[in-house]
């Protein structure tokens, strides 16, 4: 009995450290995104840059909100998360209010750990906001379609497509001038994903990636994050 209690306490201590680690990681990611933004400002106003930053932080925050509401701490329902996230991005840009741009979502009841959910959410946030900012110049009607479905053992495909004015000739995820696309490229690599860009009618991004439930970090002792940070 005492052993079981001790094991339970140890488990709780481990989880607590894990949470601290993740909070610290997330803050570090936010700090890195802000630093990147200050470098890739692309002539945007401070207000625009702050709004982009706010949207990204909201995408990360929403994962934790869903996790907090979830009975299963190892994974969150990606369907619910992405639905909430896309609605949030639409609301954020005031899109959909006039009814000019509609959204269509199709998901297949998937659940991922936060190591997959956060990069995935940030990718969706970037791609959807890109659609809303560039694909539909004032007055143009259209649709944004977001789907996520399993395609193979442990592999999934995310599609973000629109029927707007289409993409510029060159879309560069590695050294492009826009921070959004570089973030998408880096985050796709984080979840071991491959991106395909299609230009059939408007723009279509397909991301094939490996989805995973929450993993416990490291077998070695990484138990003491630097407390000065």
């Amino acid at each position: 009995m005492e052993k079981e209690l001790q094991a339970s306490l140890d488990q709780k201590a481990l989880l607590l450290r894990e949470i601290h680690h993740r909070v610290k990681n997330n803050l570090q990611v936010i700090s890195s995104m802000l630093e990147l933004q200050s470098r890739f400002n692309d002539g945007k106003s401070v207000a625009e840059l702050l709004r982009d930053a706010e949207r990204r932080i909201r995408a990360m925050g929403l994962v934790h909100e869903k996790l907090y509401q979830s009975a299963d701490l190892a994974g969150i329902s990606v369907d619910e998360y992405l639905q909430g996230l896309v609605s949030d991005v639409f609301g954020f840009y005031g899109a959909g209010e006039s009814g000019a741009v509609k959204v269509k979502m199709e998901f297949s009841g998937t659940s991922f750990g936060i190591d997959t959910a956060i990069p995935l959410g940030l990718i969706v946030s970037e791609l959807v906001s890109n659609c809303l900012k560039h694909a539909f110049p004032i007055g143009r009607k259209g649709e944004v379609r977001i789907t996520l479905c399993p395609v193979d053992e442990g592999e999934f495909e995310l599609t973000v497509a629109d029927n707007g004015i289409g993409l510029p000739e060159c879309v560069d995820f590695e050294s492009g001038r826009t921070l959004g696309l570089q973030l998408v490229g880096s985050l796709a690599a984080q979840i071991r994903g491959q991106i395909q860009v299609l230009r059939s009618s408007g723009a279509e991004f397909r991301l094939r990636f490996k989805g995973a439930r929450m993993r416990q970090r490291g077998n070695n002792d990484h138990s003491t994050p630097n407390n000065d940070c």
Partner: protein
Amino acid sequence: MIVEDERIVALNMAVELRALGYEVVSVESSGENAIARARETSPDLILMDIMLDGEMDGIDTAKAIRSSSDVPIVYLTAYSDEKLLSRAKESGPAGYLLKPVGARAVHASIQIALYMTEVEKRLKTCEARGSYLTEPPTQPVPTHWPVNARDLRNELKKALMECSLNIDFCGRTLRDVTDQVTRYMCWDAIQRCNGNKKEAAKLLGISRDSLYRHLKELGVLPEDHN
């Protein structure tokens, strides 16, 4: 080369380093990939996070890489407990920076690590040949440090001040490090001036007496001077 499992953190680091003039040959998130890429690309230096994707952590990865290469490795991590530090030391790192860390401190640490690696390599070569002062350097030291010794020492002091709270010299004191750099600077200057100590002192921006004092203190006094 950057080894870091958070891709956005790595992207930011790569952008900062490129802006400082470095070439980032590869960004890897797992130890296994880092070992393979280090072999392929032979980087001049590796910035290594400790917590990584995959089975290996940064310390095991560093040990594996250093078993077949002299590439300097600077750890860049959020962890600083004693157990981890002593494991990290075993891998012979060139530095240990605690996150969060600014681009200038990373830059300073990289410069010191590259410089020290070059100094050690040259001293080793000269020691193996039995003399500090008979073998001229084949190439200049690849560094952005100023040639003038006084400026160099000032730069070094500034850099050390900036990152002294975050850096670990793996058992060496700051004095050891600056002495070693000074010793090499004096030796290098004399070689560049074909043994002419007056010219060497001029090149270093110090007086001849100061040069002799340094050489005496550092045990590299030329044979013809007592």
